[in-house]
């Protein structure tokens, strides 16, 4: 395959791989291609998700590795990769690594992506290379491919390149239906309620919400900027730093105002993950009113929903990590 000769690892391949996600993986020659979205029962004798036939390597690797064959060696390789996080001295540039080591890297990358996603942090391609792939950069394409396959088969998640421009990946749920998980463990993620409260305030105002206004609303929940909360901890830090870091909120100084005041806006991640209709539903729930009690906002939400449906007739909506608490 010609792509193997490329030195620079191109995140684009993952986009190609995931676009054909559901039905086949054309980049895996001869490998089993099982669409993850089928409620497929994996036949017992099928080789494990990271079996040998799955390895499109640059070199004709003669050995038939069984990665379970020597877990200790793999563990050492993992430790080296993790502990140093720099090109390992034992790997001279052009010599291709053993397939088992690429498999190990794919596992590490899988875990890395899962944890980043769990923390709602951005999965940034350069970070992936720096923190996990390291000296195996030349083979990152096959590593990424293998990781995507594992994530799809075992977790039902798609590793999708959401923005080539910023080189951001995200994990998108591949199972239908998507919205129901909110019900599973309700009331367990209070952070979500807090965030939705602030986002809906901003939305209803139609512009940025001053920090004072936000605190007026939070006071209703018993939250004060100076008081530590048993669940949220330092609330002010949470909303002005953590939510901002995660791109759910923007916290900016109001121009030309003295003494300085700050206001909140929706962050880019909130715009991506949370629909206006969800905000309307949240408001309806909290205030026990019909969403149409905010007529212009409701109209906006309807229009957005229609636009989204037209833009993505068959594809999944971006995974909404916030609503699925």
């Amino acid at each position, binding site marked *: 395959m010609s792509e193997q000769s490329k030195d620079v690892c191109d995140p684009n391949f993952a986009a190609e791989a995931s676009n054909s996600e559901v039905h086949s993986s054309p980049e895996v020659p001869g490998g089993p291609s099982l669409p993850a979205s089928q409620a497929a029962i994996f036949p017992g004798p099928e080789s494990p998700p990271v079996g040998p036939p799955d390895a499109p390597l640059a070199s004709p690797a003669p050995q038939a590795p069984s990665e379970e064959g020597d*877990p200790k060696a793999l*563990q050492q390789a993992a430790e080296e990769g993790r502990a140093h996080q720099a090109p390992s001295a034992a790997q001279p540039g052009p010599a291709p690594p053993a397939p088992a080591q690429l498999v190990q890297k794919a596992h590490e990358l899988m875990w890395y992506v899962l944890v980043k996603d769990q923390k709602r942090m951005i999965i940034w391609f350069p970070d992936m290379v720096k923190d996990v792939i390291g000296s195996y950069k030349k083979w990152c394409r096959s590593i990424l491919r293998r990781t995507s396959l594992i994530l799809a088969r075992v977790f039902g998640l798609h590793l999708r390149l959401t923005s080539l421009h910023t080189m951001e990946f995200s994990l998108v749920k591949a199972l239908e239906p998507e919205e*129901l998980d909110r019900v599973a463990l309700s009331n367990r993620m209070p952070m979500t309620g807090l965030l939705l409260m602030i986002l809906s305030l901003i939305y209803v105002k139609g512009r940025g919400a001053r920090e004072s206004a936000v605190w007026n609303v939070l006071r209703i929940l018993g939250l004060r900027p100076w008081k530590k909360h048993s669940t949220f*901890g330092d609330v002010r830090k949470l909303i002005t730093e953590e939510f901002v870091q995660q791109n759910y909120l923007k916290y900016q100084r109001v121009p030309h105002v003295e003494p300085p005041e700050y206001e909140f806006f929706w962050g880019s991640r909130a715009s991506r993950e949370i629909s206006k209709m969800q905000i309307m539903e949240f408001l309806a729930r909290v205030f026990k009113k019909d969403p149409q009690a905010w007529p212009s906002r409701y109209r906006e939400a309807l229009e957005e929903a229609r636009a989204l449906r037209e833009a993505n007739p068959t594809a999944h909506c971006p995974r909404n990590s916030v609503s699925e608490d």
Partner: protein
Amino acid sequence: MQGSTRRMGVMTDVHRRFLQLLMTHGVLEEWDVQRLQKHCYKVHDRNATVEKLEDFINNINSVLESLYIEIKKGVTEDDGRPIYALVNLATTSISKMASDFAENELDLFRKALELIIDSETGFASSTNILNLVDQLKGKKMRKKDAEHVLQKFVQNKWLIEKEGEFTLHGRAILEMEQYIRETYPDAVKVCTICHSLLIQGQSCETCGIRMHLPCVAKYFQSNSEPRCPHCNDYWPHEIPEVFDPEKEREAGISKSNKRSLRSRQH
């Protein structure tokens, strides 16, 4: 090595959704895990009988085995609640935290961890931890900042705070037991009953053996004259109650009813 003779479990969308949600929540108590399991069945396979949780998890773990990850079950040290988390077995470092924290923050955690392991009670005082701030790797950290970082650890369920002292959260023990035993082989304490890592527990004043509080509860259950299993001296501590999930659930329901009433009043 077992290799190809290992029986591979079967992954369906029920299992996949379960894994997704378990990963999302990080660590869950057994009651929540059971609810989660039922929810996944409801979504994908309404008519199937819900498999016994232990078998369900073993099934998934047999698939995860080749990926060096596992759904691990543990027990909280203070009150014996069963907890579950998806853990990575391949690494022997505090890898799960690594993406969350800066170098100096990770080092603060390591320092706190050392103090906790070396302590007699399993707790390290805030003061003692903060005094080590000058020795941290990476960017210089002030004591004030270190206090915030410690709170971050508590919020993320790596540490528990009680009256100004810190110990390890059940989640941290679950995820890092291997790392801890390999890094501090001489300093770690082990429970005589279950042989797992022990941070908090009770110890015999005569011969020094230690037991987890839930292990004490189970071992001495309905024993009016508790004696040390090793030296047979009287066991000098109060015997805690065995964790009863039924009682827990009732207490939890009445608590959450009160909570939801309150929230409607605003």
